[in-house]
């Protein structure tokens, strides 16, 4: 299928990793919906960059923790382009809280954003992904879905959930010829992170191994975008239900 015909939704794509992904997909000719929640200004910057290079995209502001807003966004895509072939679930929060700092409400909210946003986005997109001859779901996850780090148990729980969400969905959508994969992302250099940045929790790598400074272990949004693009290609049609680690080997240290 020609890329020009395909349409993608990338949640949380106004900035950071998501912005890198929409820029790459648009550069390949795919039409994209840029989803943002609070920061519309950064999404507009991303859209301008895409348009300068001749890509086609539009911004839709929606809170992914609200199923009705996700449904509205998908409907807007269908109204505009009449199809949807690729869903990249990316929007997430990282509160950076210790166990004692979480209350039930915060945990429920985190769950609704980090895993509910993925789950409800799939639910909203599924009727259209099923109509595509090359339906793709890519869940941006984290190495914290496999390896503990002792700085945010709530966050790690949502990433563990995405691991199983990906596997279950891949099995369930086998008959629909839709592949579902996850990218277990390590440290990524972006403009800023959500939550309270406690970067000192990330420095022991440099302390314990000065020859391997943390900055060498960070990936760029472009690296994530390259992998997403591959997973959305025809060549990746046999990769399904996988969680691909993208961290320059940081987890091995």
């Amino acid at each position, binding site marked *: 299928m020609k890329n020009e015909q395909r349409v993608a939704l990338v949640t949380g794509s106004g900035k950071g990793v998501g912005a890198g992904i929409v820029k790459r997909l648009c550069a390949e000719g795919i039409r994209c919906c840029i989803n943002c929640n609070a920061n519309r200004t950064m999404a507009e910057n991303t859209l301008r960059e895409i348009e300068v290079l001749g890509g086609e995209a539009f911004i839709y502001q929606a809170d992914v923790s609200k199923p009705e807003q996700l449904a509205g966004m998908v409907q807007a895509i269908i109204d505009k382009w009449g199809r949807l072939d690729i869903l990249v679930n990316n929007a997430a929060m990282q509160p950076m809280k210790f166990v004692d700092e*979480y209350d*039930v409400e915060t*945990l429920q909210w985190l769950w609704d954003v980090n895993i*509910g946003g993925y*789950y409800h986005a799939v639910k909203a997109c599924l009727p259209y992904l099923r109509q595509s001859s090359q339906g793709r779901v890519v869940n941006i996850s984290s190495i914290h879905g496999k390896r*503990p780090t002792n700085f945010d148990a709530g966050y790690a729980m949502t990433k563990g959930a995405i691991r199983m969400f990906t*596997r279950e969905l891949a*099995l369930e959508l086998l008959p629909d010829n839709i592949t579902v994969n996850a990218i277990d992302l390590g440290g990524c250099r972006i403009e800023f992170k959500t939550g309270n940045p406690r970067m000192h929790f990330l420095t022991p790598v440099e302390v314990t191994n000065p020859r391997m400074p943390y900055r060498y272990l960070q990936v760029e949004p472009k690296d994530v975008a390259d992998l997403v693009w591959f997973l959305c290609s025809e060549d990746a049609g046999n990769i399904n239900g996988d969680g691909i680690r993208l961290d320059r080997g940081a987890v091995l240290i």
Partner: protein
Amino acid sequence: MTEKKTVVITDARSVSAKCAAEYLAAQGWDVQLVPENVCLWDEAALTAFAQGVAETLHAVIHPAPEKILGGIDQLTEDDWRRARDEGPVAAFCVTKVFCNILREKQQGAIIYLNSIHAEKPVGKGMLFSMGCGAVQMLCREINQDYGRQGVNCYFVQQGIGEGEEGCISDASPLYCGVDLRYPARKIPPKDHLNGLLAFLLTDAAAPLSGSDLRADGGMTMYYNHRSKEEGRRYVNEE
């Protein structure tokens, strides 16, 4: 057991948890069940219960919630909220409330009596499996924190035990003839976890803290449900 030691079982409705409660009581443990009217994700109510057993509290066993099965098209918003609250949110609250007591004592254990579905998908068990994956990561995370303060954490991946086979094989065609997925070709008896749980409650298990213990009778590591003899026959017939 001379000294009174309390083990709390947060939900003894499942077959394996019920068996464990009876077995551990017979072994001399003071087994306390969280009453059904205490909501596991109501931190205040759970704290009130925990304070009542704090003095002798030694361990907590937190079983997985009831399975919510169904394809993504059939699952409702109520299913979603129930899975969230009964699964990861309840596990988090249980951990926070009980481990805070245990770390004051610098000893004890929390055992998540969970499921192979933290690793193995069912095809129709998305909400349940997501919760299992989340609790698996909770165990690994808190081992880093409470583990440093003397509280051991274990994640037990149990397979389908006797009396539990129906619900999952009815929901997913992938699990038809589930007993054939066990090398021994039979579903493990309902009390098959008793010995493991009793061991994890001892100090001897401390080096295993933070680990996943798969107790599924070899089910997930077994692919071909045919014996070699049947396989040869099948190939010849083909």
